[in-house]
């Protein structure tokens, strides 16, 4: 820099030799501490490259001496969580369903676990609070297609309904109209009859005797003589106030014409036994459990 060793008259500092329109740049070197810090960061960066994953390669990357990997730590973290949870939930595995409901501490534990599992796995169909939707049963009420005792609920969660699992609940509403078993006017008549079973209003020219006849011939094998349903085959009670698909005439005609066969998947194998147990207790405690 000797050729630029001009001293600025005002500041008494040397200049860099750069000049724009008569304005000369003063040579103001970086503070020593700044430069040293900068060098230190470079050394640090090199160290970082050596010990941590840093450079992309053609297939893969430099893994670094520490072998650190966020993906691997997620796997171990999840495994640790499962282990911790397994320890906490072991008490549930050892207790019977009835015992869990009787013991406040176990009940609270099962409900807490059941609630999160429900939100992850069941809520998409049954709703976040188990309120259900058209075709998806409300789990808060006391009307159960496949039974509402603790054991029955657990059975349904494990193997599902029409899920294809060997132990699944079977039975379906036939398509009386589509398969040509009943004619259109017969379907309307029996739909009105079904409405009358639970005290709902019927069409003005409805023939109750004809309706009863059609019902007895076609429906009682599953729904029972009184229309009270049959949980063995998942046939709903037609005399109560709860309707899975709807109670208006059009919906009933649609149901009788095309049949119904809602599917509940089997959760055995997807959820561990203790979790299924907790889930059964949770669903049972929603309020409708028998």
């Amino acid at each position: 820099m000797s050729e630029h060793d001009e001293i600025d008259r005002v500041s008494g500092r040397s200049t860099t030799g750069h000049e724009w329109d008569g304005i000369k740049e003063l040579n103001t070197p970086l503070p020593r501490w700044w430069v040293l810090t900068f060098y230190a960061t470079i050394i640090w960066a090199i160290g970082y490259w050596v010990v941590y994953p840093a450079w992309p390669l053609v297939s893969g990357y430099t893994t670094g001496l520490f072998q650190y990997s966020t993906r691997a730590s997620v796997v171990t973290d999840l495994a640790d969580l499962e282990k911790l949870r397994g320890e906490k939930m072991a008490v549930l595995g050892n207790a019977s369903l009835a015992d869990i409901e009787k013991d406040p501490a176990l009940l609270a534990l099962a409900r807490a676990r059941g609630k999160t599992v429900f939100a992850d796995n069941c809520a998409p169909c049954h709703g976040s609070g188990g309120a259900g939707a058209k075709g998806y049963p409300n789990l808060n009420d006391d009307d159960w297609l496949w039974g509402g005792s603790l054991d029955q609920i657990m059975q349904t969660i494990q193997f599902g309904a029409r899920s294809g699992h060997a132990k699944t609940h079977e039975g379906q509403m036939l398509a009386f109209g589509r398969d040509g078993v009943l004619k259109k006017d017969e379907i309307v008549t029996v739909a009105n009859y079904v409405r009358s079973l639970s005290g709902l209003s019927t069409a003005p020219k409805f023939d109750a005797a004809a309706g009863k006849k059609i019902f007895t011939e076609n429906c009682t094998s599953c729904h029972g003589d009184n229309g009270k349903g049959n949980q063995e085959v998942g046939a709903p009670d037609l005399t109560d106030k709860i309707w899975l698909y709807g109670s208006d005439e059009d919906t009933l005609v649609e149901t009788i014409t095309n049949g119904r066969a809602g599917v509940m998947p089997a959760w055995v194998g997807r959820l561990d036994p203790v979790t299924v147990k907790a889930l059964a207790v949770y669903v049972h405690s929603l309020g409708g459990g028998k």
Partner: protein
Amino acid sequence: MNKPVSPDELITDEDGPLYAPRKKVFPQSVSGRFRSIKWRLMIVCLGVYYFLPFVRWHRGLGAPNQAVLIDFPNSRFYFFFIELWPQEVYYFTGLLVLAALTLFLMNALGGRIWCGYLCPQTVWTDLFYAVERLVEGDRRAQIKADAGPMTVKRAGRRLLKHAIWLVIAWWTGGAWVLYFADAPTLVHDLATFQAPAVAYIWIAALTASTYLLAGHMREQVCVYMCPWPRIQAALTDEWALNVTYKYDRGEPRCSVKKAFDIRSLGEKAGDCIDCNQCVAVCPTGIDIRDGAQLGCIQCGLCIDACDAVMTKVSRKTGLIGYDNDINVQRRVAGKQEIFKPVRARTVVYASLITIVCAVMLYALMSRTLLDVNVLHDRNPIAVRLSDGEIRNGYTIRFLNKRGFDRVIAIDVDGPADAKLHVIGADSVTPDRPMIVIGRDTTTELRVLVTAPFDEKAEKSVPVTFRVTDIGLGEVASATDHFVLP
């Protein structure tokens, strides 16, 4: 336009540094009324701080038996007979308000009483000064040693001083952590290196801060760091008593002999003999004769020093004393001194303190030891049952703040013919659901209320859950709504 300046005319930083250099303070030992008050207050303050964690208070089985304990893991605060839960932390707001008002009242009555006698910074600095004088000698010896070269003997003394300081600082940090766990157990764990790391970290941090603040920064904390002197100056009024040099009596300063001469001529001589003792004993190194100032923490030590000198020269004591400018002016004018401790300001502060105390006391006396909160199910809001009845689900949380388990019954007032169903409780007691709630804890329950459907009924009616302690008869209730679909 700027004119070019020749390098010789440049203004540089050499005008002086931006910060005033610290004047070393070597306060001289002193004895007297205020010194003994300060010793006693120091013993009380430090005694409370260092030994309070070891005071025991029996609370029954399973509860901690430490009188004062901040139990973070279990989120409880224990203070003798009081046990606070996290949601009752607003009591501390009351305490803070009370502390502020008391500070204001003290200030209105006697100036910086807090600064001079009670502030931890003052108390610990005072202790550290005492240690310093014990090890390195009094003011004179210290000044002499400071001016002279470093000798082995001096280095040894200095080392000893810092060692004692560090021990005090370490004990200070150690006492702090004892408030957060069972003290005897923690002492044992600390000694055997089994205590949690956080305990050691806190001890280290507080050892460092005590050593630094009381040993090295001292009066600089009061002068540069503390906000209170600034606020204090804005809050004070002309009637507040402050440590004051009564210049009406002291001026003009002259030696004892000269004063004698002047007085023998029948003229007025000042009582101040300019002995500088008030400056020598001052822990913040100021001259009180310059009048009220930021650096004066009003510890009263200059009063003791001056009184001692005044006694020696056979003059009336109290040349420096708790006084205010109004009285100085009145004395100059030949009027009687007046003191007005009772004035609007002090009355307002005192009344506010009384009110806050009363409110806090009432809040404390009337706090419920059984409480219940209710939360309505969000989804579904209402459920229709197969027989047409309507059901609402609620989550209820009970709070049992007593130190023993209790049996409570739950009743519901709400829609007509409402039935109550408590998940997990009704199998035992179907008529009136009862549950046991554990001591000093909360319990959550799922509760269902079922009522016949009435089309003409309102869409939403209030529902009240009443819980009754079967043994004690304590009642608590919470209200929510019963909603139709």
